[in-house]
């Protein structure tokens, strides 16, 4: 399904707000959204919430034959799935540009940086090695899928335990988790990616763009680092042109963010470890917050009342005088009271009315003029509530019986041949 295009005024609004250093959700330029990391019941399953963006990573392993060029190294395989579950703009099955881009970025970030010791994954050199497969599924897309995926992937890899293997001569025994405790992977470092979005040809920069900001941005710079301040990958995308100083500045910001996020991941892993040891419940169902309103309490908002009296008096002084009150009701005609001035009919209907009346005949001309006057005054004086086009509203003026009769008759006269036209004029 094609994405709903972003309206021009929404785009202008977001860009204008960015120029004034404001973001849609009230964050600062370099702030990340709230990151929440939770683990599933199985080892190697990790859920990451980056604001509203939800991502799930699952690690699994398999014994296969190694590549010919590297007979004593294990294999890492990464796969990112973009399904319509995350966003209706993603199409099922088709490998879109975004999917290729994310896949390649994750591969380069995790595989080329050699964060995992692949030689320890070798069981029998040249015959059997472990293939570690990381599947990342997008559950909800609210911008910045790359960062969320990298956090989920590395956290899942840290969380994963592979089965224990014993090699005795020619025999290879793979122990199930019940026989022997599974062992964790040996991870050298944790590369985390940080995304920077550029606006207005590189003048403005935002960290961790949300979905709306991503639609409006000119380009994206992704820097993956670990907490030892080693850059694992840099990738710029989108048609922007950067300057060297911008890249350097981004790398400095990235190092700060990465250390914070690494802290978060380590803490989450610790919590999960203790929870499992204590035998507590863990898993996806537990990680969903129970959203129930159990009490409604509004904090007292402190209000500055020190200079209220001064402020009030200045406001009163500077305020305009209230508008003059309407004159007391005027009685133009006995039995009729008029309050305020009537409004000019702005529908242009009076001109129409005049034309029609002139065309309908000479004998009614005199009556016409009177009628117009009557009509105008009636419009001023009497408010007709009925909007019905079928009803003919007859206005009676009791103090001028002759005129009233004329009016009445003329109304009826008019009414007969061109009722539709006339009833339109009644407000």
């Amino acid at each position, binding site marked *: 399904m094609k994405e709903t295009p972003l309206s021009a005024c929404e785009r202008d609004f977001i860009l204008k707000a960015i120029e004034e250093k404001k973001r849609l959700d009230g964050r600062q330029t370099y702030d990340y959204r709230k990151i929440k990391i939770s683990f599933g019941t199985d080892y190697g399953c990790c859920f990451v919430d980056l604001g509203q963006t939800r991502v799930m990573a699952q690690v699994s392993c398999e014994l296969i034959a190694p590549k010919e060029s590297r007979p004593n190294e294990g294999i890492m395989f990464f796969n990112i799935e973009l399904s319509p579950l995350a966003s209706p703009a993603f199409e099922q099955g088709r490998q879109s540009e975004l999917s290729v881009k994310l896949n390649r970025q994750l591969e380069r970030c995790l595989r080329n940086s050699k964060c995992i010791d692949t030689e320890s994954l070798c069981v029998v050199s040249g015959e059997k090695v472990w293939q570690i497969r990381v599947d990342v599924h997008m559950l909800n897309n609210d911008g910045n899928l790359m960062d969320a995926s990298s956090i989920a992937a590395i956290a899942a890899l840290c969380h994963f335990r592979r089965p224990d293997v014993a090699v005795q001569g020619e025999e290879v025994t793979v122990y199930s988790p019940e026989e022997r405790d599974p062992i964790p992977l040996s991870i050298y470092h944790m590369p985390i990616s940080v995304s920077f979005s550029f606006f207005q040809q590189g003048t403005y920069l935002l960290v961790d763009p949300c979905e709306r900001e991503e639609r409006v941005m000119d380009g994206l710079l992704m820097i993956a680092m670990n907490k030892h301040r*080693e850059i694992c990958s840099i990738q710029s995308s989108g*048609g922007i042109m950067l300057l060297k100083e911008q890249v350097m500045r981004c*790398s400095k910001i990235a190092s700060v963010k990465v250390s914070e996020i690494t802290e978060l991941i380590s803490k989450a892993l610790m919590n999960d470890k203790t929870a499992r040891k204590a035998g507590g419940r863990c898993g996806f169902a537990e990680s969903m917050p129970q959203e129930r309103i159990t009490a409604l309490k509004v904090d007292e908002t402190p209000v500055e009342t020190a200079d209220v009296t001064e402020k009030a008096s200045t406001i009163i002084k500077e305020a305009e005088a209230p508008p003059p009150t309407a004159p007391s009701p005027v009685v133009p005609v006995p039995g009729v009271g008029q309050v305020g001035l009537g409004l000019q009919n702005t529908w242009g209907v009076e001109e129409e009315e005049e034309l029609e009346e002139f065309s309908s005949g000479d004998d009614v001309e005199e009556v016409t003029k009177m009628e117009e006057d009557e009509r105008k005054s009636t419009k001023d004086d009497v408010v007709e509530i009925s909007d019905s086009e079928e009803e003919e509203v007859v206005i009676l003026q009791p103090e001028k019986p002759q005129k009233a009769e004329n009016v009445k008759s003329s109304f009826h006269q008019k009414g007969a041949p061109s009722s539709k036209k006339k009833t339109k004029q009644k407000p």
Partner: protein
Amino acid sequence: MAGLELLSDQGYRLDGRKATELRKVQARMGVFAQADGSAYLEQGNTKALAVVYGPHEIRGARSRALHDRAIINCQYSMATFSTAERKRRPHGDRKSTEMSLHLKQTFEAAVLTQLYPRSQIDIYVKILQSDGGNYSVCVNAATLAVIDAGIPMRDYVCACTVGFVDETSLADLCYAEESGGVSSLALSLLPRGGQIALVQMDARLHQDHLDTLIEAAMTACKGVSKVLDQVVRQHLQEGSTLRE
């Protein structure tokens, strides 16, 4: 390849170059008569062929048309005989698609697409022999092809791959150096303004060395731009003398 010394004590690399030396660049423009623009470029042992068609009407999905500029369609492929082992899938795999996206991104920044609304420019690049620095050679060849086609650009787009070994930056990596686990940075630059159209880096590099590495890349790109400029001027001279 643990035994190979990428930078010897005397400062010589595997192929005898110094650290900041680029490989020999040889190029030819106007190679094909059929295409609007074409170029063949050799950088050391890496050979690439670039062909440009356009600007022309958008083929296929009309919905892709942009009302205010041209779209650039890039395709990168490697000949099956280009690598040491025969390549089974020359295009359509993830690496080629990613490379095509990067080329598209690079040229979208450089070509003045606002001059051709609702049209399409096709850039096809094929690697005939791969010896490292594939992306850079493609970008350089495509620049020449775009110039040959007469499509206006902001500046030459020059690219170079640099690596970092033993506290020194090596310019223009060859295949042996690239696969030796050196942290490599590919950069494409518009030399006059010093604007970076694309930056891509793999493998670990300490943050403190990033500055020197980018500087080295920019210097190398400026060197490449001088060579490309010479090639273009020579081609134009030959063309004009023939017409006389």
